[in-house]
């Protein structure tokens, strides 16, 4: 905890500096750039790339959460129980497809840009959220569920007042995994012209400029670590607040 209180603000400051004032780091990266090549990526602003990167991740994860949770709710009702194996297979397939293959298949349909990346991130994000939500909804404390029926809550009230709030923590863990996977995977989107931080890394790879690769990688890595940490904090806070820790 003590390490966190110092390390967390330090990492946030480092990330802000890398995104907003990249020129400060020119001396650090200079030895890594080839002779005469630019040290700092300047073809587009790192801030706008970061925002677009985060936007893609947020949109894909939001869609994945919506679909995965809805599907999980459906297959844990008596009427949908028969679809549970099938839906498992589908979400698992989403996970086994390499993201590059999804991009390659999606480009002819959706064209270049953000579309194929969104599809890949969405498919990739489904599984952890779906699996966690199903697990959470099927392992609720039996006495609590029995009491919820016994005191006269109808199906909807049980779902909204008891099942989902009690499943929330485990669901959030799934969402956290999805977000972190998506933050990394989104960089590949730049191969099909989506505006993400992958642009910096790919530019570096194409021109043999390790400085660019490191810059892009560091920013994506720091985002992943900090967002992961923020979500862990959110879960801990929720657990305390709802007395379910």
């Amino acid at each position: 905890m003590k390490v966190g209180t110092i390390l967390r603000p330090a990492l946030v400051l480092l990330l802000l500096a890398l995104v907003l004032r990249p020129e400060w780091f020119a001396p650090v990266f200079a030895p890594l750039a080839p002779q005469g090549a630019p040290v700092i990526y300047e073809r587009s602003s790192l801030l706008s790339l970061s925002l677009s990167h985060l936007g893609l991740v947020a949109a894909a994860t939001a869609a994945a959460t919506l679909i995965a949770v809805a599907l999980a709710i459906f297959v844990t009702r008596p009427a949908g129980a028969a679809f549970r194996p099938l839906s498992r297979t589908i979400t698992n397939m989403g996970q086994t497809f390499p993201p590059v293959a999804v991009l390659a298949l999606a480009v002819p349909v959706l064209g270049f840009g953000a579309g194929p990346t969104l599809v890949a991130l969405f498919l990739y994000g489904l599984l952890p959220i779906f699996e966690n939500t199903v697990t959470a909804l099927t392992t609720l404390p039996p006495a609590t569920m029995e009491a919820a029926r016994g005191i006269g809550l109808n199906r909807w009230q049980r779902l909204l007042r008891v099942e989902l709030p009690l499943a929330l923590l485990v669901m959030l863990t799934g969402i956290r995994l999805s977000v972190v996977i998506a933050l990394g995977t989104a960089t590949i989107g730049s191969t099909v012209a989506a505006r993400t931080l992958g642009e910096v890394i790919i530019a570096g790879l194409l021109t043999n400029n390790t400085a660019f690769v490191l810059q892009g990688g560091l920013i994506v890595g720091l985002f992943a670590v900090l967002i992961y940490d923020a979500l862990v904090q959110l879960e801990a806070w929720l657990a305390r607040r709802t007395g379910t820790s």
Partner: protein
Amino acid sequence: MIEIDDLTKIYGDATAVDHVTMTVETGTITVIVGTSGSGKTTLLRMINRLEEPTSGEVRINGESTLATKPHLLRRRIGYAIQGHGLFPHHTVARNIGAVPQLLGWERDKIRARVDELLSLFSMEPAAFRSRYPAELSGGQQQRVGVARALASRPDLLLMDEPFGALDPIIRARAQDDLRRIQRQLGSTIMLVTHDMEEAIRLGDMVAVMDGGKLVQYATPAEIIAEPATPFVAEMVGDVERPLRLLSLIPLSELVEDGEAEGAAMPAGASLRDALAACLWTGRSAVPVEKDGATIGRVTFAAIRARAELHA
């Protein structure tokens, strides 16, 4: 009045509850006792329609339970279970107020009712209202569970092994509390247990179930004195019978004029307690007091004579 009329539940080819008919008077505690698989829990769960009967019906104050939607019916019937089943993400106040809230009571009325119930169960409202179930002891969780079941002043309170998860000392206290609160509120309670001791201690009437059938439905004294079947006798336990019988009779019934030595016992104590006191302290009689004044004594010989009445 609760009328259970020819109630039957069949699962596949197993009959869980077999043509049970009984009537429960308003304002009494009826304990349904039996071994595992006797159908006692299924019988209870058919009353608030957590299980739908295969045939037969239940009437509460003359009205069939089939006339109301199950979840609306359950809001009128309190329900407390083993392991309390509290909502872990809600405070004590929200847990207790759950049913009144479903019934659309006003906030102030709910709050007043929650405080009233907490006080009734000897839990300081200000200290407990905003705690979460995880922050309570087992006995407190159980009391909150019963308070939740009583919150909307239901016509009927169903309890399924409510004290099963408590240790013996806390359980005895919880049973006394339930008895006291039931007398105070005049509630009608049906309680399921596998423990004959609990049934005799709590029940105005005891229903013994075996293999889905109601084998005896009588007062605790009758169950002990005249078990209808060998199974009932076994449930009561031959060795325990005289003591169980004595545990039902208050000292006030046998009190006679005269002196006795040693510490006095309250008139409401049972003959079993007096017998234990005689044996333990080597006395042949114990003084009996009521409201602080000695009103006479109960002798060892009288207790013995009372027990022999049934021999």
